[in-house]
């Protein structure tokens, strides 16, 4: 293993983090057990809102995972050797975040034991079936990339693994976006633009989560992050946030102009109670405009500003996914197009949804699981660069 220039995280503080995170993971498992034994009646989910808060966290973590691979791709695919020292950290974060997301997804199935059916019987007309391969393939490919870059593999092998991982992460996020994009039954989804929107959101969330992980893990080991790497990743984050904003604006305006989905857009943006608040205040205000101010303002380009902006982008991402996933479901289905419908079966009625504590515990537990896995990986493997920046070819081999 080529560990020149890398070290494992220090023991100091490790068990304290474990003591904080393990109870959160246990609480998530307890919550899943409760749902399994008492049924989903203890959650806020119902027949209209099938995907609740745990799914918001699961999709959030999956998007973070895909985007956390950005520094590795920048180094290997785009030849930016500045990011080479943090490439393996990027790959490990990506795998851990994805595992955290998948744990939430699986534990919320209602019958996790029936997962064996999803693994052994494939309906290839279902995008969910494609995503099973997407997620497992991502873990394997990024694992191979990490093994190659850490184990003195030939430069060509590292590059090939890096290229495949980059292509795969684009496919993976496209697949996640397509789950919603081709879901024609729900007017709040059913838009091809959700595919590039999910890819862009993963770039933003992944870069933000990586920046938080990088700064905190380097500080944990008593190091200062390379200001140039931080600044450049911060600028990238700003660009990704702008792209997400632009795509959201295009989606919203075309829906309003075209008229077909005007009802659901007006509901999510203006009349839908908590959803417009989360959209304007959470996604647009706190999650986009404020981080852009932090990232672009001349006087606040330091590490603290970039860290604050990253946390805000993560908060905005959660709000964005809550509005999309939950808001898209509470809006009534248009079963009788062209008719005004009312019935004793809630036709034409906006559904109620309020997450319960069980869902919060499961969702937050998934994040805790991802962070815990990152910490264990950093404590056991030489992932942290000794110093930043490293001149290419001196302390660390450029993959």
């Amino acid at each position: 293993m080529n560990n020149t220039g890398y070290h494992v995280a220090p023991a100091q503080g490790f068990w304290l983090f474990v003591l904080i995170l393990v109870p959160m993971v246990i609480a998530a498992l307890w919550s899943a057990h409760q749902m399994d034994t008492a049924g989903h009646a203890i959650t806020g989910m119902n027949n209209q809102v099938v995907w609740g808060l745990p799914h918001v966290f699961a999709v959030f973590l999956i998007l973070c995972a895909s985007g956390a691979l950005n520094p590795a791709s920048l180094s290997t695919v785009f030849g930016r050797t500045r990011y080479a020292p943090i490439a393996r950290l990027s790959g490990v974060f990506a795998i851990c975040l994805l595992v955290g997301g998948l744990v939430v997804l699986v534990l919320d199935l209602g019958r996790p034991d029936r997962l064996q059916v999803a693994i052994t019987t494939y309906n290839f007309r279902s995008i969910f079936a494609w995503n099973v391969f997407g997620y497992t393939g991502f873990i394997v490919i990024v694992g191979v990339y990490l093994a190659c870059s850490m184990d003195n593999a030939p430069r060509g092998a590292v590059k090939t693994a890096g290229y495949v991982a980059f292509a795969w992460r684009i496919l993976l996020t496209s697949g996640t976006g397509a789950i919603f994009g081709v879901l024609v039954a729900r007017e709040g989804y059913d838009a091809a633009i959700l595919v590039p929107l999910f890819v862009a959101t993963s770039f933003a969330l992944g870069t933000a989560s990586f920046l938080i992980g990088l700064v905190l893990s380097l500080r944990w080991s008593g190091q200062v992050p390379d200001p140039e790497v931080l600044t450049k990743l911060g600028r990238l984050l700003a660009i990704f946030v702008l792209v997400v904003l632009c795509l959201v604006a295009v989606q919203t305006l075309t829906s309003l102009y075209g008229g077909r989905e005007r009802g659901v857009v007006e509901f999510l943006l203006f009349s839908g109670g908590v959803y417009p608040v989360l959209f304007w205040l959470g996604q647009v205000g706190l999650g986009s405009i404020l981080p852009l101010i932090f990232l672009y303002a001349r006087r606040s380009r330091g590490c603290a500003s970039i860290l604050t902006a990253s946390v805000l982008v993560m908060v905005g991402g959660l709000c964005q996914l809550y509005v999309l996933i939950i808001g898209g479901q509470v809006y009534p289905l248009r079963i009788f197009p062209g008719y005004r419908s009312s019935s004793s079966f809630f036709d034409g009625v906006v559904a109620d949804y309020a997450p319960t504590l069980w869902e919060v515990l499961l969702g937050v537990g998934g994040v805790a699981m991802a962070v815990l896995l990152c910490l264990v990986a950093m404590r056991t493997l030489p992932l942290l660069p000794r110093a930043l920046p490293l001149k290419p070819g001196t302390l660390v081999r450029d993959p």
Partner: protein
Amino acid sequence: MMACPYKARSFIHINLTGQRTHSPRGKGTVESCTFCVHRVDRDREPACVEACTAAGHQALLFGDLSDNEGELAQRLGEVQTQQLRSDLGTNPGVHYHGL
């Protein structure tokens, strides 16, 4: 459940007891109307159709859509009907008249 445009799927949110042999439904799974397949197999009509007829409404007609000589096919040829969300091209087996 998520993809069904008709609200025709239900998730079982609680523990169930006393399930019948012909309907082994259970918590944590998704179910939908089976058109009372256990009754149809014994040449009976679905319970809702039977109840509707018994009440004298005659609002429901059940039959085999693939049987070109059957009463259902004949009525479908005579009466203008609509399928819900026909724009999606799912060709559901339930036709409505007089919406």
